[in-house]
């Protein structure tokens, strides 16, 4: 199982968390102005990256707060953890080389 480090509570097992999918997907500023295509894009289309992927997790069995993780979807290695108010950290593609699996 994954071990993730909540920014507020520290390292905990995956079973304490809830997955939230791709991070940095803002709610449309003016939803009624969207075309059907744009609305479909917002509702149904998400990146499905093979490699470092910025995603959301909630510490649902702990402090109940949401935060972001950059995780390599090939190796499942966690490359960065950051709060919603932090910018997405720069993670080089392939940064995991030699790192723990």
């Amino acid at each position, binding site marked *: *199982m994954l071990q993730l480090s909540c920014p507020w509570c520290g390292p905990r097992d*995956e079973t304490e968390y809830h997955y939230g999918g791709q991070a940095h997907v803002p709610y449309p500023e003016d939803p009624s102005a969207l075309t*059907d295509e744009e609305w479909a894009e917002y*509702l149904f289309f*998400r990146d499905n*990256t*093979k490699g470092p992927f910025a995603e959301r997790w909630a510490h649902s069995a702990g402090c109940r707060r949401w935060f972001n993780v950059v995780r390599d*979807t*090939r190796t*499942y290695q966690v490359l960065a953890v950051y709060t919603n108010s932090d910018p997405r950290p720069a993670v080089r593609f392939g940064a995991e080389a030699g790192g723990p699996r």
Partner: protein
Amino acid sequence: MAKPLPEHPAWLWRDPDPKASYDAIVVGGGGHGLATAYYLAKNHGITNVAVLEKGWLAGGNMARNTTIIRSNYLWDESAAIYEFALRQWEQLPAELDYDFLFSQRGVLNLAHTLQDVREATRRVNANRLNRVDAEWLEPDEVAKICPIVNVSPDVRYPVLGATFQPRAGIAKHDHVAWAFARACDAMGVDIIQNCEVTGFLKDGDRVTGVETTRGNISAGTVGLVAAGHSSVLAEKAGFRLPVQSHPLQALVSELYEPVHPTVVMSNHVHVYVSQAHKGELVMGAGVDAYNGYGQRGSFHVIEHQMAAALELFPIFGRAHLLRTWGGIVDVSPDASPIIGPTPVENLYINCGWGTGGFKATPGAGWAMAHTMATGAPHELNRPFGLERFVTGALIDEHGAAAVAH
């Protein structure tokens, strides 16, 4: 002196080098890719076809699924394509001249709550209207069909009844792939393994071929049938898909005497179990929550489904887990597949089958071949195009239950 090894048995298909050009290229040598090539040749007379597989034939989800075949889906569109596939399964062993142990031992979908019961009876009625065999069973009737299911009211989630589809069952998935591969090969289709598609040759908005680890190959038409890697390929071709790739795990026990005569699925406690011909108990459940391309998942997911299996089948208390594994499944927003044209001309897609596409293998191949050969969807896949995410005409099998696998 060591005894010489026995002769290798006859190969089921040739191992050709890629030609410079084909009328049709199918990307992905899993069940759906092989079935697509088979029906391109058989139904449409298009035999100058290559199936390009980055690894070995059917080493992806085709070799990793729990082989449940059924057609008791709620919505008309789903019932149509899954029932079409089931009717193909019923005669494919003869057509392909290959006994892949298709066993119509029936599937029970258990109901554990009032909501389950209502959903299940509604689905039975919907199935019957679609001429899909379906019945509602009370707990004592469940016990008659599968005596090892615990139907005592004295458990956390008692069995309140079940739907039963007698024509459902299991088959030997790798043999299905080999049967299709042999038949494709005999009709002239080139099956090319260790050949990864790395990009697309395009003339404006039209695809004219593929770039591969074994060189460029031109093609009149290209079909993407890459399951968990569909998004990766779509991105290379310049469009996006509404699918997410997740690990899906399964497991088998050691070999036991036959104890389990049917297939049991429970969405509520979340496990499904059958017993393979050799004797392993085969179990699976839901996807790991996170996106992943690693062909492995987290162990707590395995623990959860084993706990569910033990509650339903107390007799498994002393069974030993032999091995677990994972595949990469392409999950769509409405738990229904995407089969049809793409924004790129002459490029077609079959994906989004997620956790339940093995049962559809012949139907998916039939529809995809028709779409590639004629440029237009078949009746079976017309409702399953990419455009439904814009029009909103979703085929929502997620909530409609009995959906997993």
